[in-house]
């Protein structure tokens, strides 16, 4: 074989191996979830029939139904508000003469390298003093704040690609900046906004440290935080734990599969525009 032929064979083989390595852990989780509850398991094993009672048990008795609901409520509070705030700010920073605009933008970008670890301690004590721990607004505000730098960055980069002439023309027609944004620019901005919404949803759903600390009340925990506590409690019953995990990841995986192009492009170009 020539070098070229060898490479033509190597590429699909290597990629297949990588994909297999990604998929096998998921597969072993799915197989474990289908086993009869309480059975001692060994690695990858063909389930003894298909046992969906683990899912039923995880949903009701183990309380993952309500956990999913709290996660959904948080995401509903975070995603639209954060997308709107980021859109307004990105629009202004890209197309208007904002006083100190460059500095404000730099100040917002600083947030990209602020880890949650450095905000969570005072957030806990301060929100508790305000009576906002264990509440939807408390956690939602903390998440919106954490997500804002990327969103402003993303929407500003998007609005910077809009031709100036379009905005000038709208202004000459007497449109206010508000009308220009919603009537003229929004229709063509839908892909950028959708991508941001998808990223925000996934981040909000997957957030762990903030809900772990800001929500101490077991009844109000989010799904990942609940799963975290559950692993401690149900260490032994692998099928039940596997089913619970699948329930927790189902919403993000579905959103991802549905909007995969948006998600992947968002992560890739979001990273590269920086």
């Amino acid at each position, binding site marked *: 074989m020539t*070098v070229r032929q060898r*490479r*033509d064979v*190597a590429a699909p083989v290597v*990629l297949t191996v*990588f*994909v297999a*390595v*990604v998929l096998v*852990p*998921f597969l*072993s989780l799915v197989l*474990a979830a289908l086993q009869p509850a309480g059975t001692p398991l060994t*690695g990858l094993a063909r389930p003894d029939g298909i046992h969906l009672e683990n899912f039923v048990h995880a949903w009701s008795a183990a309380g993952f139904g309500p956990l999913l609901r709290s996660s959904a409520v948080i995401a509903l509070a975070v995603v639209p508000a954060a997308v*709107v705030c980021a859109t*307004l*700010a990105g629009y*202004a920073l890209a197309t208007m*003469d*904002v*006083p100190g*605009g460059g500095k*404000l933008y730099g100040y*917002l970008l*600083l947030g990209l*390298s*602020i*880890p*949650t*670890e*450095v*905000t969570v*301690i*005072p957030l806990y004590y301060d929100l508790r003093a305000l009576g906002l721990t264990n509440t939807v607004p408390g956690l939602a505000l*903390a998440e919106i*704040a*954490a997500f*804002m*730098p990327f969103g402003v960055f993303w929407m500003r980069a998007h609005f910077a690609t809009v031709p100036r002439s379009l905005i000038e023309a709208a202004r000459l027609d007497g449109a206010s*900046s508000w009308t220009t944004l919603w009537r003229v620019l929004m229709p063509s901005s839908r892909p950028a906004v959708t991508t941001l919404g998808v990223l925000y949803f996934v981040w909000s759903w*997957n957030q*762990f*440290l903030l809900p772990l600390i800001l929500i101490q009340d077991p009844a109000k925990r989010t799904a*990942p*935080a609940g*799963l*975290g506590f559950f692993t401690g409690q149900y260490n032994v019953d692998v099928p039940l*734990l596997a089913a619970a*995990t699948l329930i*927790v*990841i189902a919403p*993000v*995986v579905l959103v991802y*599969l549905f909007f*995969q192009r948006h*998600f*992947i492009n968002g*992560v*890739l170009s979001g*990273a590269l525009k920086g």
Partner: protein
Amino acid sequence: MATTTTPRRAARPVRKDTGPPPHSPSTTRRRRRAVALLYVLPALLPYTLFAVLPALHTAYLSLFDWDGVTLPSFIGLDNYRRVATDPQLRAAAWHAGALIVFFSVLPIALGLVSAALVARRPGRRGTSLIRTLLFLPQVVPLVAVAVIWRWVYAENGTLNQALRAIGLGRLTDSWLGSFTWALPAVGLVGTWVVAGLCMVLFLSGTQRIDQEIYEAARMDGAGPVREFWSITVPLLRPEMAVALSITVIAALSSFDLIYITTGGGPGNSTVVPGILIYRLAFGGGAVGLASALAVVLTLVISVAVVVINRLAKERS
């Protein structure tokens, strides 16, 4: 300012009758700038109140000895002295450094190799499906990733089963409970999460590279290894900088994965800064020390990001 605006205000009623507003350009401009600021405010406000101020508050708390309940007492930079000398905190710093190998170096190496292999195949069929699958670990919450891998690494889990199947049964171990293996085992989970992102990032980068460059290199007699180091790697520099920034931040600020897989154990063998901050602040009654550690962590991350971006810009 007041003297120039007052007459104009007085003139306002006239405007209704005479049609076009007699605004001077400077007033219009000032108004427009004020409006522009209003647009930025809804983003600025929550960010300042719930991200920047808490971060500054952490810096303030780091100067106190505080158990979270009784009155804090000011101790200056003592907490920072402890961060620099405490053996447990040092261990955490070492582990975070080791995680960079697993979260950054390995995934980037894997990504570059796979990108190089695919870069020269013109008709890349099925890459969309491959992208989707490789990205999957990136989407799933890290808590779930940790649960999945606890099962893979378990005594009778998938990894030991595979080892037994290929006749290496004597190598089996309880990976996450072993002082030797827990850190690399957790690190490899990080590799598993991030590698797909790096691959997809580099694969999309190679589409930018002109196939003619490869043709020219081959005319000059460059082999695949030479081609890799002289074309693929240098031309993917922007993507490498991005991958490095993202993964170094992920390694240094890791928490979820370790909290669920090992909790920092066995002993302190997988303790990282995130775990210690959590333990000290919310279980250990050492809020000041935890704050100092969080401040140092943030500074290290910021410096790392700046250095990575500098290096990327300088060389390109």
